[in-house]
């Protein structure tokens, strides 16, 4: 209940003064009691909102309501849902409390739907009420209609990307049905992730009678008095953090957005900045390089303990690793002092991510000989390059900028990549002036 109120406050919604639970009665194998305890006409949260980046700038998605209910259970089909010969019922999550959030029909494209989900999930993670890495922690039913027509519900989609794909397919399907002169029927469809198509599950010919009545085993609770205390526990939310990062660290909006997309990443970044490193350089290395390398490796951030950020493989949770705050600080400082080139710094990050044993960046740099070359070594390489590549020099002086790139490449080759490309370039230009 406290978690639900926390979510409601973060969504800037209205919180019900008193809780009320009803029974929704229906027979289904995943429902062990034959009814589901749910909040029927008195949801704990109503009228909230989430601001997303829409197709044309900031866009507000209204939250109609968020109510609590118990998770029934899970049907496991053997093979695909269509061909399964039997059904297994997994009751492990049966009876666990969950929040069902209903939005207004405010999303105008599959992309906006996905962005809403990303943002919503981001907020939930900030609130620490939810572990997105757990299977089934967030499930989505997406409703879609075209030309203001009949809506179709696609049930139980497990990923945000899946929602976007399912909606894209469904919109295409509906448009084509109408184009051929057909009619869209009110129905529930299932998204087949593998084939990327939606399949009809059941048509809602008549509304089912759930025989709702108050759950006599759960007494109403007055929760109004809880609200001030719960509000106190609300963390800084993604949008506020993003604005503060721009203000406090002088970083770009792109970097701020990326860094605040995960609370653990934001905390990691602040952990790095706390030690007096250049926040702009730290932002580049954290948001662009480090995060990019994680994504490339299918690693998802899963923890942050103040000292290191942990991540697990999205497809194989057995694979996990971490990256230390102190390592990032060391690396940023080495780069800021000009002791390593950007290429070398990237190499260090990759080595740590792929490494089995813990090694400080300075040791990796030393072992791999990645320290930036001394200036005279670069000067020497520049002189040699100019002497050895008359044709290229001539072309460059004749106005062919491309030849300069070739010359820089030659310097890098001679210094085995330890030279800073920018410095090499400057030296060549200066020499040929």
């Amino acid at each position, binding site marked *: 209940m406290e978690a639900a109120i926390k979510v409601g406050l973060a969504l800037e919604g209205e919180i019900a003064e008193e809780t009320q639970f009803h029974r929704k009665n229906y027979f289904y194998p995943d429902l062990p009691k034959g009814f589901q305890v749910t909040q029927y006409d008195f949801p704990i949260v109503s009228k909230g909102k989430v601001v997303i980046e829409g197709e044309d700038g900031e866009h507000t998605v209204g939250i109609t309501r968020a109510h609590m209910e118990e998770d029934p259970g899970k049907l496991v089909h053997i093979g695909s849902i269509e061909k399964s010969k039997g059904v297994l019922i997994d009751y492990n999550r049966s009876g666990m409390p969950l929040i069902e959030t209903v939005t207004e029909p405010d999303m105008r494209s599959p992309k906006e739907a996905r962005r809403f989900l990303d943002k919503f999930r981001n907020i939930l993670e900030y609130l620490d009420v939810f572990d997105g890495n757990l299977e089934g922690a967030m499930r989505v039913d997406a409703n879609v209609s075209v030309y203001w027509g009949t809506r179709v519900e696609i049930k139980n989609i497990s990923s945000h990307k899946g929602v976007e794909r399912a909606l894209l397919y469904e919109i295409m399907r509906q448009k084509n049905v109408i184009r051929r002169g057909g009619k869209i029927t009110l129905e529930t469809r299932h998204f087949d992730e593998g084939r990327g198509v939606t399949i009809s599950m059941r048509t809602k010919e008549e509304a089912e009678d759930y*025989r709702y009545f108050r759950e*006599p085993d759960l007494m109403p609770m007055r929760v109004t008095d809880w609200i001030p205390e719960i509000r106190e526990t609300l963390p800084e939310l993604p949008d506020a953090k993003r604005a503060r990062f721009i203000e406090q660290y002088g970083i770009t909006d792109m970097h701020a957005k990326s860094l605040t997309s995960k609370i653990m990443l934001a905390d990691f970044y602040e952990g790095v900045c706390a030690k007096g490193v250049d926040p702009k350089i730290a932002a580049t290395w954290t948001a662009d390089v480090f995060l990019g390398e994680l994504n490339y490796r299918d690693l998802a951030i899963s923890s942050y303990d103040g000292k290191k950020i942990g991540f697990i493989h999205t497809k194989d949770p057995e694979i996990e690793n971490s990256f230390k705050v102190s390592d990032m600080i060391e690396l940023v400082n080495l780069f800021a002092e000009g002791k390593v080139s950007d290429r070398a710094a990237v190499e260090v990050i990759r080595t740590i991510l792929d490494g089995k044993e813990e090694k400080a960046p300075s040791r990796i740099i030393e072992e791999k000989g990645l320290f930036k070359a001394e200036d005279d070594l670069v000067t020497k390489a520049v002189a040699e390059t100019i002497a050895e590549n008359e044709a290229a020099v001539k072309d460059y002086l004749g106005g062919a900028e491309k030849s300069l790139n070739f010359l820089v490449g030659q310097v890098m080759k001679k210094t085995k990549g330890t030279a800073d490309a920018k410095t090499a370039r400057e030296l060549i230009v200066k020499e040929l002036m």
Partner: protein
Amino acid sequence: MAKWMSVAQVKEKIEENSAEEVTARYLEVIEKSKINGYVTVSEKSLEQARKIDVEGHEGSLAGVPIAIKDNISVIGLPTSCGSKILEGYVPPFNAHVIEKLLAAGAVILGKTNMDEFAMGSSTETSYFGPTANPWDLERVPGGSSGGSAAVVAAGEAPFALGSDTGGSVRCPAAFCGVVGLKPTYGAVSRYGVIAYANSLEQVGPLANNVADIAVLMDVIAGYDRKDSTSIDSKTEYQKALVDDVKNLKIGIPKEFFGEGIHPDVEKAIWNAIHKYENLGATWEEVSMPNIKYALASYYIIAMSEASSNLARFDGTRYGFRENGENWHSMVSKTRAEGFGTEVKRRILLGTYALSAGYHDKYYLKALKVRTLVKQDFDNALLKVDLLMAPTMPNPAFKIGEKIEDPLTLYLSDVNTCPINLAGVPSISMPCGFTDGLPIGLQIMGKPFDEPTVLRAAYTFEQNTDYHTKRPPEVA
């Protein structure tokens, strides 16, 4: 050892002999039973008693045997609610009240017969056949906790637990000449009690005397985090056992003395009221105008809740299963075969009352009536400390006499079910006989004022000898 013993006497015998011998003696009596009161006799009771002898136990019920109604979950003992649909079901957990009893050292003798899913007032709807009334083996013991009341009356257990949804503890207590309490709603945890109608029912004790009721309440009552309707009233029940009713104000609701009441019952109740007057209490008539709607409201609410509660018995996970071509057909067949006629009737009626289009007309209206009935109790109990009335308008009827006529059977709950709608405490105790059949006096109190109810009952018992009479047929 005497056949009928109070808990205090049982404890003396345990002290003199052993818990094992006491339990063995009850098992012997059960072995010769003529009443079909037990559905299951525990194989582990002797062992349990022996363990208490060997290891010792500090609990208030160390080694004292008890009988448990078959809708209260006990690990290792089949719990069937008197239904075929729970055939073979053995609970993997204990009800909260069982945990409390075991912690106090009680020895569980077995599970007692009941109307199927507690739906009835005669224990005739049980899948395991009817239980006989010890006072007349051709008559019903009342219900639905008929087994619990009958075994206590027959000396097959010193006391027992029942459950009371619309009179299921008090009705059999009255018919069998024992004491039965329906505690205030919320006084006792319902966790592990297989639900019939959650908003109405309470676990209640049955015993041969008022003191034993208090002993049992001190063990089972209190807050349980697994039942959010339970609360800790901090009541000390045995402290209420005081022989004094001076200046106690008794209300007599005339609506409880309606048409069809047996003249001997009416006479016995008035004799009891005059006895209280002699002991220093005063009485006045009170009016509770909405009581006449209570029965209809009670049945709609109970059946509606039941239709939902009993949905879980579908053959998927436990109990009886009839095979079908697919899941839906398996469920249909299982429920058609597994439930008895009365249970199916109540599920259908309850489903109907909750259905779209009828919900407001029946269920919602019943809830509104319930509020009015509650207000009647509130108003009456502002003026008086207690209300007294007959528990049952008539003594025990013959087995088979009413079973074909559900409406007549429903009408026998007319004086007991209003109490469940209001949630107040109510006790039934012996106050006379008609043609050798016991008559029950019902004493109702304010919410959580069990102490006043118990004090009045105890005082009556101290000054009369109805509670010492034993059924000759099983003596």
